[in-house]
């Protein structure tokens, strides 16, 4: 009998506000330890929090993007526990009245099938600092730059049934939060962190005991961690054992996981409403303003890509998912005057190159405008697709715009028919046996054998001959 896998996710999304959730400190980006930590962030006696309205606005915008109820009087609570990088001895978070209530997100699977993942709620909370265990012999360093960074924690219902669905959901969430501009979406910087709750059961049975694997910071690690945990749970249950409710840690480098703490060791967090903060009010006017300012959502963008650019469903899905990619594509498509070519280049050559060099599209050495220019030259026949790759490489290496590269390297296609005709004549004159052989062949064979002459011509022109023109010319001359 088969097992059914049940997955729920909790995702920490770091908001890209100017300052922290409860203090005026700037969000830290690689600053020296403790240089972006104010009196409030340090938890100094007598200091008090003040809610950053920009963070509330961004959280509510997310709520609207997933069709959720927005709580008009959401409440911050204190989650009490001791940890060295938690300066106040409590985390200010939300429990009973989170800013974002129940909502839903539609995901599309590779099979083309669509599925709704329900969102239980999303709440605002502050991040903790970092404990630094290296470089301090026998001691731990504390860096509070990150303390107080605003997060929304998105909690799903246990609606996913395998790792693929979980990853599809995670990618969709990434697309939404980057599209509405509330998160930079840089996974390598921990902008999104996933906790996965996994349980298995026989189909039709009640939910099994779940485990939580914490702090996965890439889609790939999340997928692998889920698969590993599912395998482990199946092994345990099929060996007659029981699943223990516990928190687990996954190590992506070794592809192993271990138990961090069991339910019995869980803290009693003693939540209670934070008396230093008033309920956060969101008015009708606030909501109207947010709705009016809502940027294009991934689903809307995909529909537009399908309609405006006649892309395939698959291309539209891939290109609309990530805001930066979508924007890059649109600029390139418009500048190049050919959406299909632009789509192919963005998902093909560009994606491969970015991947190989572990760069994001924002760091692409070839700009969207440059790619557009390259596509325009392809489209108007100035260069062939083979030459285009050469031009792209040169642009990537920083040798200038495509036009400049084509000019400097003399890569323009030979479209002067007189010049090309002379080359073709020479080839025919110098390769009599091949010409004889060609002429005595039937049409099917001719199609194959013309390749020899094309190759010779390309060699003679260093690839610059216009392929269509060359073909026509050869057919005419060879008969």
């Amino acid at each position, binding site marked *: 009998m088969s097992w059914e896998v049940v997955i729920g996710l909790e995702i920490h999304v770091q908001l890209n506000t100017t300052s922290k959730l409860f203090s005026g400190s700037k969000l830290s980006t690689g600053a020296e330890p403790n240089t972006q930590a104010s009196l409030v962030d340090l938890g100094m006696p*007598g200091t*008090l929090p003040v809610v950053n309205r920009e963070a509330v606005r961004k959280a509510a915008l997310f709520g609207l993007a997933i069709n959720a109820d927005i709580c008009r009087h959401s409440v911050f609570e204190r989650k009490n526990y*001791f940890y060295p990088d938690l*300066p106040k001895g*409590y985390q200010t978070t939300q429990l009973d009245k989170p800013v974002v209530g129940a909502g839903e997100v539609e995901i599309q699977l590779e099979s083309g099938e669509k599925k709704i993942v329900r969102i239980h709620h999303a709440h605002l909370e502050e991040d903790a600092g970092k404990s630094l265990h290296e470089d301090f012999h026998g001691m731990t360093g504390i860096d509070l730059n990150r303390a107080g960074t605003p997060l929304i924690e998105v909690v799903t219902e246990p609606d996913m049934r395998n790792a693929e669905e979980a990853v599809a959901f995670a990618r969709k969430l990434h697309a939404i939060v980057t599209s509405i501009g509330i998160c930079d979406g840089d996974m390598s910087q921990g902008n999104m962190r996933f906790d996965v709750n996994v349980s298995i059961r026989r189909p039709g049975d009640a939910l099994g005991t779940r485990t939580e694997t914490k702090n996965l910071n890439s889609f790939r690690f999340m997928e692998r961690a889920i698969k590993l945990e599912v395998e482990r749970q199946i092994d345990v249950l099929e060996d007659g054992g029981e699943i223990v409710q516990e928190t687990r840690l996954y190590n992506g480098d070794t592809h192993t996981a271990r138990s961090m703490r069991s339910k019995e060791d869980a803290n009693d967090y003693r*939540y*209670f409403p934070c*008396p230093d*903060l008033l309920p956060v009010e969101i008015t009708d006017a606030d909501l109207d303003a947010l709705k009016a300012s809502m940027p294009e959502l991934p689903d809307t963008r995909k529909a537009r890509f399908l309609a405006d650019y006649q892309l395939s469903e698959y291309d539209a899905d891939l290109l609309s998912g990530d805001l930066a990619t979508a924007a890059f594509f649109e600029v390139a498509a418009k500048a190049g005057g050919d959406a299909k070519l632009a789509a192919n280049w963005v998902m093909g050559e560009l994606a491969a190159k970015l991947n190989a060099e572990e760069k994001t599209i924002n760091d692409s050495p070839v700009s969207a405008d440059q790619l557009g220019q390259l596509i325009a030259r392809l489209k108007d026949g100035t260069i062939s697709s083979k030459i285009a790759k050469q031009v792209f490489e040169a642009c990537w290496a920083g040798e200038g715009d495509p036009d400049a590269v084509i000019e400097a390297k003399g890569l323009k296609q030979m479209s002067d028919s007189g010049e090309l005709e002379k080359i073709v004549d020479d080839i025919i004159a110098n390769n009599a046996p091949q010409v004889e052989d060609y002429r005595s062949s039937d049409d099917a064979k001719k199609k194959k054998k013309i390749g020899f002459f094309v190759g010779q011509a390309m060699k003679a022109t260093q690839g610059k001959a216009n392929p269509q023109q060359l073909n026509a010319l050869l057919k005419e001359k060879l008969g």
Partner: protein
Amino acid sequence: MHTKTLTELKAGLAAGEFSSRELTEHFLGRIQQFDADINSFVTVTEQQALAQADAADAALAAGKGGLLTGLPIAHKDIFCTEGVRTSCGSKMLDTFIAPYTATVVEKMAAEGAVMLGKTNMDEFAMGSSNETSYYGPVKNPWDRERVPGGSSGGAAACLGARLAPAATGTDTGGSIRQPAALNGITGLKPTYGRVSRWGMIAFASSLDQAGPMGLSAADCALMLQAMAGHDHRDSTSLNEKVDDYLGALNDDIRGLTIGVPEEFFPDTLDGAIADNSREAIRELEKLGAKVVSVSLPSIKLSVPAYYVIAPAEASSNLSRFDGVRFGHRCDDPQDLEDLYKRSRSEGFGDEVKRRILVGTYALSAGYYDAYYRRAQQVRRLIRDDFARAFEKVDVLMGPTAPETAFKLGDKKDDPVSMYMADVFTIGVNLAGLPALSMPTGFIKGLPTGTQVIGNYFREGQILNVAHKYQQATDWHKQAPVLGGAK
């Protein structure tokens, strides 16, 4: 000079009868002479005070004075003062030099006040006798065998002893009003949110409120004028206009309705205390006020509700004292748990530990509903009781404390009996209302006080009532005899 009120000293400075330096030196001299015995100061900031006094004299000479220019003031050691130790009466913060200044201190300094030093207090403001201070108990200047009350005991005692002409205090359950009553001075707890809590070390955030303590209602009005106001750094500070407290002092009180809650005069109350407050109310009646009886049926639940809510908040507020970033840190911690356990065990005193334990318990899973949630419900009932009463009356009056100053050590081992010292003051904090205590006489040579409670943001009105009373009486002018020199 020390027999004068702050208002009189302000006039003296303006008239050039004495300089701020002379005034400051005079009080610094009295502190040096008498405070070894009374122990009302934890830190005396002599150099800083003299520098501020000189600056004040220069400002006065240039005709550029503020509300408090040149007037010496003592701050409770719960307010952060940049560059000066801010101990909160605890070993935990014995070496803590605050890196910033509280709004209250900042605002008073901006009006030209001269800081004499930081006053002794119950540890983290937890206590009603000033016996929980790491720096030893404060003695009541009227009888040095007795407590000054608490937690603003140092502030009240230094005023009673005329070692300072004005002081700041904080009041979470009666910590301004009860010691004011026990030392024969006037103290006001403003409406919750009227005075900023920024820089005031938190005990119970939803109840803590800073306020003025002085020799008269007029002095408190002068100080409150400088202290009150919205502060964007405190989300619970209210953006309400600050009234003209000084201007309202002489308002006519004829026709004013005084409500007397029967619950403030229970059968069990000491007859002398009850008689004293009734007499004070009669005095106001003579001045034209009407007196009616009212009932606050839920007020009897205020002590148990308070002793859930305040410790619950405190247990969380005091978590930051963990030995990691500031405050006491144990020697040679073996590991993280050892660091936490020993730093906190060594740094906190018994009463603080007791309240952290009570508060932690009250918030624990399985107990939250029975304690914390229930206490919050009681709090709403108490607030509703007061709201109903204020539909009919302008102010409420009754005794501030159920007894006069008790002997040092008398209640030290009986926390519940100690907690009952605040039975009449705690309800006001739970409701967030303003209230003051004014001296209304003596019982067996010890001062006693009567509380005047106002509706939200009616500080001006209760100061007006107290001022009228003080114009007709002279209890507030009585001072104890200190070691022969008066």
